[in-house]
């Protein structure tokens, strides 16, 4: 395996650079996926039928918690990649673990939030608005869940195999994914919650 030492390890082999480009293209597809959900959300936002409107069910506290947790986790995964680049495996694992814990906490708050909605009569079957709201949030949440397990596997692999071209490549791609989820959340926060509460 040829390793080009002029590049960071995660870009070091040809296969690695293919994977990173491929993942960027995948993120392009993900953008379309969330764009479709957002477009549907904006189309259906006022079609509440007999159910509640956004202003009636949105609460700022859990949403702020979620936002802070996810933004922080995006920062820590960045620190993890920095640690990885300077070859500090332990620090990297620590930052990645912290990222995943924050992600887990985010999911916890989100589940609580969903529970409240259903409790208030805003289940997924209530109206077109609640259907698309919960589907959009749920799709994002499912991505975070998937990311949690993915990150876990990568930590285990780094622990076992050290910082190799393969593991660093995986970790770097994971960080792209995690940042992307953060960006999506910023859109959800601004255009679903803030706009809905105003």
């Amino acid at each position: 395996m040829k390793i080009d030492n002029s590049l960071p390890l995660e870009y070091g082999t040809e296969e690695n650079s293919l994977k990173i480009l491929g993942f960027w293209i995948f993120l392009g597809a993900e953008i379309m996926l969330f764009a479709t959900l957002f477009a549907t959300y904006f189309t259906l936002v006022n079609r509440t039928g007999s159910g509640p409107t956004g202003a009636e069910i949105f609460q700022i506290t859990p949403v702020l918690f979620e936002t802070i947790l996810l933004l922080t986790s995006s920062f820590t995964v960045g620190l993890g990649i920095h640690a990885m680049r300077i070859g500090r495996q332990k620090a990297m694992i620590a930052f990645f673990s912290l990222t995943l814990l924050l992600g887990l906490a985010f999911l916890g708050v989100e589940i609580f939030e969903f529970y409240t909605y259903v409790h208030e009569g805003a289940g997924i079957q209530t109206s077109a608005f609640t259907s698309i709201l919960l589907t959009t949030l749920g799709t994002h949440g499912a991505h975070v869940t998937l990311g949690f397990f993915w990150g876990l596997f990568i930590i285990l692999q780094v622990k076992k195999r050290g910082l190799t071209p393969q593991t660093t490549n995986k970790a770097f791609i994971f960080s792209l994914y995690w940042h992307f989820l953060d960006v999506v959340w910023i859109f959800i926060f601004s255009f679903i919650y803030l706009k809905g509460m105003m």
Partner: protein
Amino acid sequence: MDFFDRFAVPHPSVAIYASMAAIGLTVIAVIAGITYFKKWGYLWREWLTTVDHKRIGIMYLLSALLMLFRGGVDAIMMRAQLAVPENTLLDAQHYNEIFTTHGIVMILFMAMPFIMFFMNFVVPLQIGARDVAFPRLNALSFWLFFMGAMLFNISFVVGGSPDAGWTSYFPLAGNEFSTSVGTNYYMIAIQIAGIGTLMTGINFITTILKMRAPGMTLMKMPMFTWSALIANVIIVFAFPVLAVLLAMGTLDRQFGTQFFTMDNGGMDMLWANLFWVWGHPEVYILILPAFGIYSEIISTFARRNLYGYKSMVGSMVIISLLSFLVWAHHFFTMGQGALTNSIFSITTMAIAVPTGVKIFNWLLTLRKGKIVFTTPMLYSMLFIPLFTLGGVTGVMLAMSAADYQYHNTMFLVAHFHNVIIPGVVYAMLAGLHYYWPKMFGFMLNEKIGKWTAWLLSIGFVLAFMPMYASGLDGQARRMYTYSEAAGFGLLNMISFVGAAIMAIGFVLIVYNIYYSTRYESRDISNDPWDARTLEWSTHTPVPEYNFAILPEVRSNEALWDAKKNGHVLFKGEYEKIHMPNNSGIPFIMSCIFFVWGFSFIFSLWIPVIVTTLGIFGCMALRSFEQDHGRYISVKEIEETETNLRGA
């Protein structure tokens, strides 16, 4: 017994029982045959676990041909039912199921895999690469597509086929009006196949951007590779829309959400809008690679370089952009007002301009050429006039006020068959004849091939031209019958005769494959057509590593450059070649997907949970697996090359 009732066909008939028996017998015969000839090991090692783009391509081809006949039988049944007024060959429910499956099978399970076959087989060879960027993902793409297609096809005998049209508009496709599991099949089977297609898109963009031979800049890529690149970009942007749409449809049907329902805020036209936001780019995913194939073939057999290379590329880029801006022309009659209709009317007509540029470029490629009429060239030369007819009727349909009269009629049906059959199907058949020798080491018989092309074209004209007239006479599409007084009888009878002639044409293709396999000469060169691009510079049959030495390129017609100007393509010594290992995971994972989909369709939640865990298990396994591929040694390469040169 209640548990098993759900798997029964809700509306059985002799035809369905007969096909159940036929499917059962075929499966038993195939299994028995493989066992008798002791081919299980071979099948597993060489095909089911393969990651070789050429073999994956051939598997796409086989699936596409199989589905061509499934969709073709649907078509001939429809034409037979409509051949005379008040016919009772099929009842309304069967007719509805048949036109629904005809549409889906032909577009998603026949045309798409055919295009995938060309992209898989040709693109890596054309850009001088040894495989695609992610070979194992490529295998997974194929198997997901295959399992999606199979899942969709068993709907016919287990639980009932979808019956709401290939567009599956809600609320007709909702629980209230579509009570069988048929539409669940639609949602889940297409979802599984669609995930596969999306991954193909990512894979091929990466391949084309990163793995071209030295010297091959973007503007030195062969035209088919360009068309594949653009089609894959469209895939990446369009298929996520489909994924979301199908997920929402599934949620509505199986989890009681209110996206497209008739109360509590549901919006029926949301489905139509999102469907066509995917659906219109989808037809360009099919037609652009077809244009690419025609460009290769016309330039080869005019013995000239392709005229206007840059404008060919430019027009495809413009078409791909416009393809996302025209979706509302599928429902001008929705009542969105004159302004919206005007905008979409203009964007739609604008597509005629770049498409016209392509037609004129092909015509100018013929100029000053030395035209040889081979079967692929004959298809291409029949394509130009017939496709032009389809194109201009498209412009007519784009006139939104007039479309109020064309919409939902046989005029529309005639139009889109008139672009898809000469545009896409002819390209596939032309490409099939063209690339057949590269795949299998012998040519398809030219005489039978030309007969087929003419038969198909005569049948096509007879089958579809009358529909323009019957549409203008008020025959709506999707009517399972009509009265004598309506006066469509003669036109529909002509259509049926045409369809029957086309059916003979398609059977002749199979006969040609049989005949040529038995009688055609195996003694052909690596470049039997005197072609111009890199795929013809390697051996026939193509060794698994494609090129022993990666070619160096300085022209968009690299092989022609080598033949005429003496450019040396392969410089240097053999080096060991890194190749990916075969893997069973894509196949196994797709099988689990099949069971997952089947259970999901019937809302059997326990198997759904188990198989979901299975799918994630496969992904975890892949994550922890360490597979660095293998090397082919210089000695092995030398042996292979000597053998191939000797033969």
